[in-house]
C-alpha cells in the first residue's frame, strides 16, 4: 500500500509540473525545483544542479529527462515510468483535444486571419531568447563561427540536424584527443 502511494505521488508531482509549465524546458526549472527540492525534499540543491547538467547533456525534452532522473533515483526504473507518465499526460490530453477540435476550424476564414497574425509572432518568439541563450551556452568571439556555420548550413544547404549533432560531438572529442597527444609529446 505504502509503495503504491509513493508511485502515485511521483506521478502526481510530475503531472502537476506538466500541467502548469508553459513554454517547456527552461521555464519549468524553477517549478521543478520548488516541487522536488523544497516541498518533497527528494533531492538537495547540489543534486538538483547535477541533475540539470545530466538532463541537458542527453537528448530529449529537458522536462522529461528531469522526470526520468527523479523517478529513477526514488523508485528505480518503475518509478521513472510513473514520473514520465505524469509529465507526458497533461500535454498529451490537451493537444489531442486541440488537434481534434482544430481539424474542424482550420479552414474557417476567421481562424486563418488570427493565425496570419500569430505566425510571424511565433518566429519572433523563437529568435528572441537567442542572445541570452548564447551567453549561457558559452558562445564567445572564438567559437562564434560554430553557431553561424550551423545556422547557415541547416537553413540554406538543408544539412540534417542529425549530421550537425554528430559532427559537433566528434569535433569536441577529437579536439580533446588532439590536446592529449600534444601533451604526451
Amino acid at each position, binding site marked *: 500500500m505504502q509503495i503504491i502511494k509513493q508511485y502515485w505521488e511521483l506521478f502526481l508531482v510530475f503531472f502537476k509540473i506538466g500541467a502548469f509549465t508553459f513554454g517547456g524546458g527552461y521555464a519549468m526549472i524553477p517549478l521543478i525545483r520548488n516541487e522536488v527540492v523544497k516541498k518533497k525534499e527528494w533531492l538537495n540543491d547540489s543534486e538538483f544542479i547535477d541533475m540539470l547538467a545530466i538532463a541537458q547533456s542527453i537528448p530529449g525534452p529537458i522536462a522529461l529527462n528531469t522526470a526520468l532522473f527523479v523517478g529513477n533515483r526514488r523508485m528505480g526504473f518503475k518509478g521513472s515510468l510513473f514520473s514520465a507518465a505524469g509529465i507526458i499526460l497533461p500535454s498529451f490530453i490537451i493537444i489531442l483535444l486541440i*488537434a481534434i477540435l482544430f481539424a474542424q476550424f482550420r479552414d474557417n476564414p476567421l481562424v486563418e486571419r488570427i493565425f496570419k497574425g500569430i505566425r510571424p509572432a511565433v518566429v519572433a518568439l523563437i*529568435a528572441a531568447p537567442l542572445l541570452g541563450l548564447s551567453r549561457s551556452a558559452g558562445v564567445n568571439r572564438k567559437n562564434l563561427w560554430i*553557431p553561424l556555420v550551423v545556422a547557415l548550413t541547416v537553413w540554406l544547404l538543408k544539412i540534417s540536424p542529425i549530421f550537425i549533432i554528430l559532427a559537433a560531438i566528434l569535433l569536441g572529442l577529437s*579536439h580533446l584527443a588532439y590536446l592529449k597527444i600534444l601533451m604526451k609529446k
Partner: protein
Amino acid sequence: MELIDLYIALFLSFFKIGLFGFGGGYAMLPLIQREVVELHGWISVADFTDIVAISQTTPGPIAFNSATYIGYSAVTEMGFTTGYGILGSAICTLAVSIPSLILMTLVCAFFFRLKGNPWMESSLSVLKPAIIGLIASAALMLMNGNNFTDYKSWIIFGVVLAASVKKVDPILLILLSGVAGLLLYPT
C-alpha cells in the same frame, strides 16, 4: 497495411527526433521540421508554425506537443477515423520518449558522473554553441512566404521580437498577435 506502414514511419521519425534532440525545446524544431515537413510531408510549413504557436500557449514540452498533434493529424489526413488518430498520437509520444528513457536508465544505473568527465565536457563545449545555431536555423527556416505574407507580417515580427526581448509574457504576445491578425487582415 497502409495504416501500419504509416505508424511505423511515424514511430521511426519521432524515435530519431528523441534520439538526436539535444538541447530540448526550440533546438529540436529544425529536426522535427525536417522529418515531418520536408522528408515525409505529413504537414505543411504553415501548419507546423501553427503547432509551435499552440505549443507556446499550452503547457508541456514542444516535442511532446508536436508528437501528439502530428501523430493525430497525419493519420486522420489519410482518411482514418479519430480512434486511429489517437493511437497515432500515442505512438509518436512514446517514440519520442523512449530514447530518453533508455539513456537516463543507463545514466542512473552506472552512475556515470557525466559532469566533470573531460570527454563529455569537450563534446559539450562544441555541442552547446551548435545548439544555438540550430535554434537560429529554426527561426530562419520559418521566415518564408507561408508565414510572412506581406509587410504587416514583418511589423508583427518586429514588435513581438522587441517585446519578447523585454520579457513580455509569450502567451500574451501570441494572443495579442492573434487580435492583430483579425484587425490587420479584414476579409
